[in-house]
């Protein structure tokens, strides 16, 4: 559950003053959503861990400059999702140029994952990202557009195409 804005501002202020417990409160409040968002975009647990870790390290490094009047969550999520998109794109690129050097990466998501999550894995990372931001992290299309640096119309069209593709895949699975 997301912390209240008041709690979050207090934690950020205390962490800026050097409080470990405030930093831990921020971390515990945001880790799960950050990790899940990364996982749902990259569909790789180790990759999601790296991305979420990097996002928190970036947050720690920028803590002194952080504007306490702004919410912490969207700022963290923007880092997570943009890095996750980069990671997913880079992986598909690496698979092409380095395929002869190792065993192939596992392409199919594990069967024990929910059907919706497995269907999500089949979408392009850009579509996954907007669906995750909209339906897991509950941002509005306008907020998503600002986070990803995209026109709002592009966000809406990616959402629509992504949801249509998801619905088709879910139908196929039934």
């Amino acid at each position: 559950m997301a912390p209240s804005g008041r709690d979050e501002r207090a934690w950020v202020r205390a962490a800026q003053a050097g409080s470990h417990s405030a930093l831990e409160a921020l971390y515990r409040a945001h880790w799960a959503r950050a990790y899940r968002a990364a996982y749902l975009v990259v569909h790789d647990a180790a990759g999601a861990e790296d991305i979420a870790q990097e996002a928190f390290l970036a947050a720690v490094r920028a803590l002194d400059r952080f504007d306490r009047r702004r919410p912490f969550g969207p700022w963290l999520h923007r880092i997570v999702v943009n890095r996750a998109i980069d990671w997913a794109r880079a992986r598909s690129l690496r698979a092409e140029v380095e395929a002869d050097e190792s065993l192939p990466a596992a392409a199919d998501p594990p069967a024990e994952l929910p059907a919706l999550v497995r269907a999500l894995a089949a979408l392009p990372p850009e579509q996954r990202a907007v669906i995750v931001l909209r339906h897991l992290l509950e941002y509005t299309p306008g907020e998503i557009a600002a986070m990803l640096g995209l026109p709002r119309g592009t966000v809406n069209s990616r959402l629509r195409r992504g949801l249509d593709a998801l619905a088709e895949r879910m139908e196929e699975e039934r």
Partner: protein
Amino acid sequence: MRELERFRAPGEEQAAERVWPVVTSAFAERERAPRPRRRLVRPALALAAVAAIGAVALTPPGRAVVTSVRRAIGIVPVQRALFSLPARGNVLAGAWVVHADGSTRRLGDYREAAWSPFGRFVVAARADGLAALEPNGRVRWTLARPEVRFPRWGGGRTDTRIAYLSGPTLRVVAGDGTGDRAVGPAAPVAPAWRGAVSAGALALAYADPRGRIRVFVPATGRTIFRTRPGPTPTLLAWSDDGSRLLVLDPTRLRLFDAQGRLVAAVRGHFVDAAFLPRSRRVALIRTDDGLSVVSVLGSRQPLFPSAGRLAQVVPSPDGRWLLLTWPDADEWLFVRVGGSARVRAVGNISEQLGGRAPVEGWR
């Protein structure tokens, strides 16, 4: 979409516990440098300055210039002796143990050595055998084998094993010196034990003569993965959590996950690399236009550029310092990772450690 809201990602809680120490460590670094400072020099200037040091350091009249430039880029003057290490732990260099307070102890007449998994013992090699020692040099057991090289000790609290090369053959022996057996032909590179695993799943990575990396479980012989043939690697190393295998060869750095999937490949001229403790971050030395550049993989900002030929990078146990060896200058450099830029340089290493001693580890 309710399914998405209820979704719990695989490994979520374990990952949170693994990452928290890394975050808190970065936070502790930040506390020591609470205000962002203007950098004294930009990277290009730093490169030029260090290049100047390299050029001038050979001429005695340039010493004053060297000193001032060193100060400008955060390097204190070279200490003539190793008075202390900048972080806790002990450094194993050749057959010498260097303690945090600067005291040293010679283990004996050995060519190379390596720490046991928890740093309580040392395995040392001489031309005709292997020996397990206490850090004070007391011998626990020995094993006579020809042309012993690259001993590496791995395992957990209850089951440890030592891998080593005897001539061209990889062999594995139990931590108590029993059950020595041959595994097969291997390339001349140190094998690497995967950490953070249960006793029954202790896995070893090594390179065969065709440059294939094989990861297998010595207890059962089961191969976990094997790569295709390629150049002989110069380094194999696992991250502490056993989730990443680093493979270095002169022109490539590759990272594999525990199942053998390639997760990163970087081209360049790499000299040495090492995982930072409890992390998947890789510190590395690469050469670029005649300079040795020390950096953390993925970071655009070099930690330390040097006109000298750096040979090794070894992280401190807390991950906050890197020990860089500079054999041509007979120096060790200690470079801070993160926080304010700090470098300590110590000279006369061969005099203090009885010759050129490659650093085998810092525990």
